[in-house]
C-alpha cells in the first residue's frame, strides 16, 4: 500500500481527508498519481497539468526525497512508501 499525503489546500476536495491509501499505487510516482486520479480526479487536476506533469510550483516527495532529484515521475515507489504533496515556497 502507498499513502499519498495531501496539503491542507486540497483537502476540501477530499471531504477533509488528508491522506489517501492506495492499495494498487503502481511502481512509480507517475503511476501512483494516476491511481490517485482514479479516486480523486479534482485533486489530480490541481497537482498535475494537462500534460501529466507536476505543476511547477508543486513539490512531490517520496519518503522525504524531492522527486525532482530522484527521477521525476519515474521515481520508484514501494510497498509502504509515503508520497507527500506540498506547495512550494514560491508566491507573492
Amino acid at each position: 500500500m502507498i499513502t499519498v499525503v495531501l496539503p491542507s489546500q486540497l483537502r476540501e476536495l477530499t471531504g477533509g481527508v488528508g491522506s489517501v491509501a492506495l492499495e494498487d499505487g503502481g511502481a512509480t510516482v507517475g503511476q501512483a498519481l494516476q491511481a490517485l486520479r482514479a479516486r480523486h480526479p479534482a485533486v489530480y487536476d490541481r497537482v498535475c497539468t494537462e500534460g501529466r506533469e507536476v505543476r511547477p510550483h508543486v513539490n512531490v516527495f517520496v519518503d522525504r526525497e524531492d522527486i525532482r532529484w530522484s527521477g521525476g515521475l519515474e521515481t520508484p515507489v514501494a510497498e509502504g512508501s509515503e508520497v507527500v504533496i506540498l506547495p512550494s515556497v514560491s508566491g507573492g
Partner: protein
Amino acid sequence: MPDAPKGIQGNAGDIVLMVGTTKGAFLFRDDGSGSGWTQDGPHFPGEEVYAMALDQRGGGRRLWAAPGSAFFGTTLRRSDDLGASWSGKDERPVRFSEDAGLSVARIWQIMPGRANEPERMYLGVEPTCLFESGDGGDSWAAVQGFLAHEHREKWTPGNGGLCMHTILPDPGSRERILVAFSTGGVYRTDDGGASWRPRNVGVRAEYQPDKYPEFGQCVHKVVHHPDRPERLFLQNHWGLYRSDDWGEHWQDIANGVPSDFGFAMAIHPREPDTVYIVPLESDGFRCTPEGRLRVYRTRDAGASWHPLTEGLPQEDALETVLRDGMDTADTGGGGVYFGTRSGKVYASADGGDSWALVRDGLPPVVCVKAEVLA
C-alpha cells in the same frame, strides 16, 4: 484571514462592481440610496482573479469568477446568490485535452454569449485559446479551429503572458466572433470558429522590424457597442485605432492624447462613439504621465480625446490601469469604473465628468466589471 464574505443582497437597479485582484475578488454594490458602496470580500483570498462576469441572460443572476492559485492552477467558479456561496473547486475544470500539448495557465476573460443564446458562453485563456460552452458552463471545450491555427507556433507571450483578453461575438451573427490576444493581434471567424483570419491591417507592431505584419501585434484591448458592432476601438501596445468594418482595416485615432500607450479601454453603455482610456507614459514606464491620473474620453469616435480629471488625483499619482481594469454600466447617467495596480477603485456616475474613490487599499486590481442588476 479576513471574515468569510457573505455575498451582496441586490435588488433590481443596484449597481454591482466585480473587482478582481491578485489576492482575491471583491464585490461592491450601490443601491442608489446615497449611502455609498457596500463591500463584500475578499472572495478566494490569496488567489488571483483575472476574470469575472455577471450573466443575467434568461432572467438569472449568475456570477462567474476564475480564481487562480500560484500552486494549483486556475478554476472556474459560479455563484447563483451573488457571492453568498460558490460552486466547488472541482466543479468546472477547464483544461485542454491531454494531447493538445498545452496547459491552461490562467483564465483572462469570461464572456457570456449572445442574448438569444443564453446557454452559450466563452472563455479566453492563456496560452491563448478560445473555449466554448453550449450548456451554460457545465462543460467546456477549446475551439478546435483556433487551437489548431497554423500561426500558433509564432504567437509569443507579452509581459502578461500569451493571453486572450478580448472576445466579441457579433450580436447579429452566430458565425462571427472577433478575438484579440497579446501577442498575435486581432483574429476573426466568420464560420462559427472553424477558421480564423488575422485582422490587423493598419495596426502597428512597434517592437518588430516589420512595423505592419499580418499578425504579431500586441493588442491590449478591443471594445465595441452592441448597437454598432462593426465599429471597433483598439488600444494597442503603442497605438489607438478604430475600425468601421469589423477589423478589416484600422485607422489611427490617437488625436490629442498624451500617449497612445495604455491597456484599459471601455465603451459608453449608450453612446457607440464614446470611449474611455487611461493613457500611460510608455512601455518603459507604465504609469500615468506627469503623475496625473487622467481618464481620456472621446465622444466622436476618436476624432478628439479630452482628459477627465475632476475627483482624480493630479499630483503624485503614478498609477496603472490594466487591460481589464475598466468597465461601464448602463446606469442611466453613464457609470464608468476603473481600478489601479495600487489598489484603488474609482467610479463615475456621470459618464466620466466627475469621479469618486470607491475603495483604496486593495491588492493590485487586475479586473473590473460592472453591471446593473436586472
